[in-house]
């Protein structure tokens, strides 16, 4: 690390004492770089074994890394916490301005401990930390308004990140998210509930620092090469054009688009909710995270008439991505785009993880169809495939929890199925609800074995699609091996950390060159070590907190609904899981 680079600095904030301090941690950042690798070590230090995820002993770690503030698409912050959703490792990444703000404020990581007596919001402005009363913000109906209020009240427009929670986080819905810059989220695994449990309504971070480089000429040269690769080649084309919703139609064509709680892999309404159709009819604006020229964030403009006044309208601007279209569209059988966008909007207002919310509502709909629950449980709502209005009301009830049933839904499908039955079609893996790919065993093995049970851990969906295309036979062992190699490498990328959409640009060779310009002289072996060790440390943490591969629950539904690779069975997946566990 170069002298003058503030990456070594960790800001510790204690909400119980309303105090803060800074510690230099050069050894941590020299060996771990930052992001995931530094974050998991800080979390393991901070949270004692068995800590209550919603108690004072849980900690929130935000970690950035060396490439942030230097190179394009190094735009992500890694959040590490104990998840109230799975009761185990919580890791969630977000872009927006979060990473740049933390790095420019002069830190490599921020650790938040304790619980505040009063609702508060914290402002980090460079070296200063301010604790502000948030009592008046607590309980506000819309998380958008919280953002608007803080945007006006606090300074630093253009140089800051404002992370905030909605009512879902306040009420500790186990899959409440933290929203930053309106359209980016620490979406998965319930960071919003951890904020809520600490009385932390929002965290604003602002800074305008500078960063040294080792070799100016080489820095500008590598920068230009990267910029060229990002903007002039086809490597980012998918994200640049239609964005991730371009997946909807191809996945539907091959039968991999989970539909009506994965009773099918094909949705008759796929065309209506496709990236193409949304771009044509609704795309109203494109925006980017700080320091990213790609602008993958697609905003739909949705005109909503006032209920009682003719010629009065409001226009919503809503972010949409493949996962949101899957969760609030095909998974619920919804092809009415306006209805789907309003569901996304309601989840944003409440501050919920859209993916888990959609999967949870899909499970509830099937449970209602099968008579496991009644409309008494649902507070009178007749949830029916394709009918957005009932789902809109259900999302509100997940947060307001008028019946025991909604209190159960507020903890996700694993928990709800443990209370009401229906585990065979409760689509969660390692406790985390399913992403929008039913491509074959690779996808599901990835959700099961990935350290954060996310499709982004190891991209099994990509292996499936290659196998389906080539017709090549896959064995449990070969599949597990491929996923492990990918997940290890992604530990490196998320320790820099870069946006995984740029994984095609940031090859090992490019990463080494980029680090070299910052005075970090690493080798291929160093990268390899970092990937292996980080995954091992994550799994050591998971096992310390009670995770076992043997206890992973495999919902039967995934074996019943044919995937593009054909059907596969539990034995195949169990063998693959075992091989993965042994190879770690």
């Amino acid at each position, binding site marked *: 690390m170069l002298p003058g680079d503030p990456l070594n600095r960790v800001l510790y904030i204690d909400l119980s004492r309303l105090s803060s301090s800074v510690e230099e941690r050069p050894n941590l950042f020299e060996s771990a770089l930052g992001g995931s690798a530094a974050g998991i070590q800080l979390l393991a230090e901070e949270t004692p074994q068995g800590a209550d995820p919603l108690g004072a002993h849980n900690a929130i770690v935000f970690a950035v890394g060396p490439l942030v503030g*230097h190179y394009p698409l190094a735009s992500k912050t890694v959040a590490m916490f104990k998840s109230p959703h799975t009761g185990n490792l919580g890791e969630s990444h977000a872009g927006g301005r979060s990473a740049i703000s933390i790095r420019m404020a002069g830190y490599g990581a921020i650790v938040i401990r304790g619980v505040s007596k009063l609702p508060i919001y914290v402002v980090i402005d460079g070296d200063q930390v301010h604790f502000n009363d948030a009592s008046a913000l607590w309980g506000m109906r819309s998380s958008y308004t919280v953002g608007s209020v803080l945007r006006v009240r606090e300074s630093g427009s*253009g140089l800051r990140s404002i992370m905030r929670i909605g009512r879902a986080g306040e009420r500790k819905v186990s899959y409440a998210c933290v929203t930053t810059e*309106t359209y980016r989220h620490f979406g998965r695994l319930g960071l919003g509930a951890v904020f809520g449990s600490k009385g932390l309504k929002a965290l604003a971070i602002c800074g305008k620092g500078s960063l040294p480089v080792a070799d100016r000429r080489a820095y500008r040269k590598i920068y230009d090469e990267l910029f060229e690769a990002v903007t002039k080649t086809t490597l980012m084309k998918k994200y640049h054009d239609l964005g991730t919703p371009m997946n909807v139609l191809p996945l539907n064509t091959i039968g991999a688009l989970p539909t009506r709680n994965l009773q099918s892999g094909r949705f008759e309404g796929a065309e209506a909710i496709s990236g193409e159709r949304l771009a044509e009819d609704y795309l109203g604006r494109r925006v980017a995270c700080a320091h990213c020229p790609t*602008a993958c964030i697609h905003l739909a403009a949705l005109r909503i008439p006032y209920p009682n006044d003719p010629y009065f309208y409001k226009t919503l601007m809503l972010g949409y991505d493949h996962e949101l279209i899957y969760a609030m569209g095909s998974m619920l059988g919804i092809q009415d785009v306006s209805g789907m966008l309003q569901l996304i909007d309601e989840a944003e207002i409440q501050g919920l993880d859209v993916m888990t919310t959609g999967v949870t509502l899909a499970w509830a709909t099937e449970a209602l169809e099968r008579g496991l629950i009644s409309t008494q449980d649902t507070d009178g709502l007749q949830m029916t495939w394709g009918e957005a209005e009932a789902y809109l009301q259900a999302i509100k009830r997940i947060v307001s929890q008028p019946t025991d049933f909604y209190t159960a839904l507020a903890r996700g499908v694993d928990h709800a199925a443990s209370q009401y039955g229906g585990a065979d079609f409760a689509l969660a893996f390692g406790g985390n609800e399913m992403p929008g790919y039913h491509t074959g065993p690779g996808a599901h093995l990835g959700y099961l074995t990935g350290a954060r049970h996310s499709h982004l851990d190891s991209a099994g969906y990509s292996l499936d699609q290659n196998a389906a295309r080539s017709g090549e036979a896959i064995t449990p062992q070969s599949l597990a091996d491929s996923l492990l190699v990918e997940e290890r490498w992604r530990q490196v990328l998320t320790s820099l950390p870069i946006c995984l959409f740029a994984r095609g640009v940031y090859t090992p060779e490019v990463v080494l060159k980029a680090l070299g310009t910052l005075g970090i002289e690493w080798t291929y072996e160093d990268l390899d070590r970092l990937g292996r060790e980080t995954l091992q440390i994550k799994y050591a943490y998971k096992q310390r907190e009670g995770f076992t591969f043997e206890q992973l629950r495999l919902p039967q539904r995934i074996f019943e609904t044919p995937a593009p690779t054909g059907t596969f069975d539990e034995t195949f997946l169990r063998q693959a899981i075992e091989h993965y566990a042994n190879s770690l």
Partner: protein
Amino acid sequence: MFACVRRLGKGGLEGTCIHVKSAGGIRKGFVVIVCRACHDPPCARVCPTDALVYREGGGVHLKPKLCIGCENCVEACPFGAIFWDFHQNKPEVCVYCGYCAPYCPYDVLALEEIKELSHVTG
């Protein structure tokens, strides 16, 4: 913003002479704040020591040795395009080098030579 700093061989944002912020929340998009190279720059007019002087072709040129750090120029610019270097206690303003423009892939930024006054006032 990053390009402006990278021009000086550094990373980060300190010293950037161009600023991008949301137009009141990202829902409403973004605005770019940078010196528009006025032909009768108010920032220069309010400088008590002639440290900020009119630059041939539009905009201003800073003579740092003359600057006393009064910040009148910051107040005078209606766009907020004069930034402040708190270490040196002196203004930071665009030098019209155009280094940033090629790093804007959406042609929002461009470096243009403007000769006729009527072109800018029109």
